[in-house]
């Protein structure tokens, strides 16, 4: 049973699991937007670089160069955040650089195997966009559950509208992730059972 479950995991589910550190680090809408932007930039840079890497380059060197490109783009991104809001940069800079080392970004840095995989490279870019939207949606849900309100100017103190006051804490993020994963599994299971 377990083996069957593992074989059914799609790359998107695997990427979502690899994205867990970002889900946990995105405590509110503002940090979610900043981290989703960082993820999208690093993921897209690494995907594009690994796709257009000269074929004569060995795989480890190509991987290292893609990672270097991702790190450079994150440095540029962090500087832009610092120019826009130095306090926001102080809050988030360690988490921005963490994004460069999570599984989906590492995976995107790998040079594609063969022509077929190379042709499907654009899917990686689309997947990056979908995953960053998932980060923003999750951060929005966390702030909404914790304070009863979500705002681009930062979270308000939790008041009477708060449904899950600890949603902004790391433990709250894991609980919320577990609920979402269980719901998604139930829905996909139901859909599969309906299929002839």
């Amino acid at each position, binding site marked *: 049973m377990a083996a069957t479950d593992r074989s059914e995991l799609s790359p998107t589910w695997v990427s979502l699991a690899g994205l867990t550190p970002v889900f946990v680090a995105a405590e509110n809408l503002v940090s979610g937007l900043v981290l989703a932007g960082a993820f999208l930039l690093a993921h897209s840079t690494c995907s594009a670089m690994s796709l257009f890497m000269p074929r004569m380059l060995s795989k480890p060197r190509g991987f290292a160069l893609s990672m270097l490109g991702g790190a450079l783009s994150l440095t540029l991104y962090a*500087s832009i955040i*610092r120019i826009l809001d130095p*306090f926001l940069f*102080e809050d988030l800079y360690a988490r921005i650089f963490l994004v460069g080392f999570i599984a989906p970004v590492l995976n995107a840095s790998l040079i594609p195997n063969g022509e077929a995989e190379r042709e499907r490279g654009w899917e990686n870019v689309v997947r990056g966009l979908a995953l960053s939207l998932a980060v923003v949606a999750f951060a929005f849900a966390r702030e909404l559950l914790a304070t009863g309100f979500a705002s681009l100017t930062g979270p*308000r103190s939790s008041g009477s509208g708060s449904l899950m006051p600890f949603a902004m804490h790391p433990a709250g993020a894991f609980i919320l992730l577990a609920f979402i994963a269980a719901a998604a599994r139930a829905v996909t299971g139901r859909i599969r059972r309906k299929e002839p």
Partner: protein
Amino acid sequence: MDTATRERQGGMKTHTRLPTLNILYVAAFAIVLAGSAFASRYAAKRAGEVFISSSGKIAGAAAKDATWSPLREGLVLGYAESKGAVTYIASIPLYTARAYAAVTVNADGEAVSGTLIKPAAGNAYSKRLGYVIGLIGKRAERGGSPLDGSVAPLVDTMLEEIASLERERVGGLNGRD
């Protein structure tokens, strides 16, 4: 054109294409690297200006010609200095958020005033932290809020770190004289 010549030309093409692509890669890397370095330098300067203007809230008009020195030691981010007045900026962690405080010290290294320059968004302790920091340098009791158990140790740690950094700074100045 015979096959051998065509193959030779094809081979030549490959040899000229790959170095061109490599040169493009190196050029793109160099441009992004230079851009990152420039942006990083500018961002550091801009952050200094923002911190100085924030510290100006308590340092007064002296903040106009102040200089920013980054430290990043413990809770302290750095200090703004203007005509002998020194204002430290500290970042105080409050569970999932961070508050930022400015504390001015006099020539003797004594903390004479403090203010919360950026409250921790959405944190219930932030208001109380602002009150306790606002009492720095005033001869008033902190009062008896049940939140002080969490807030007061943070303020005391910040003041201890500022005192230690100020001792180092003044010690360094005396060493230079």
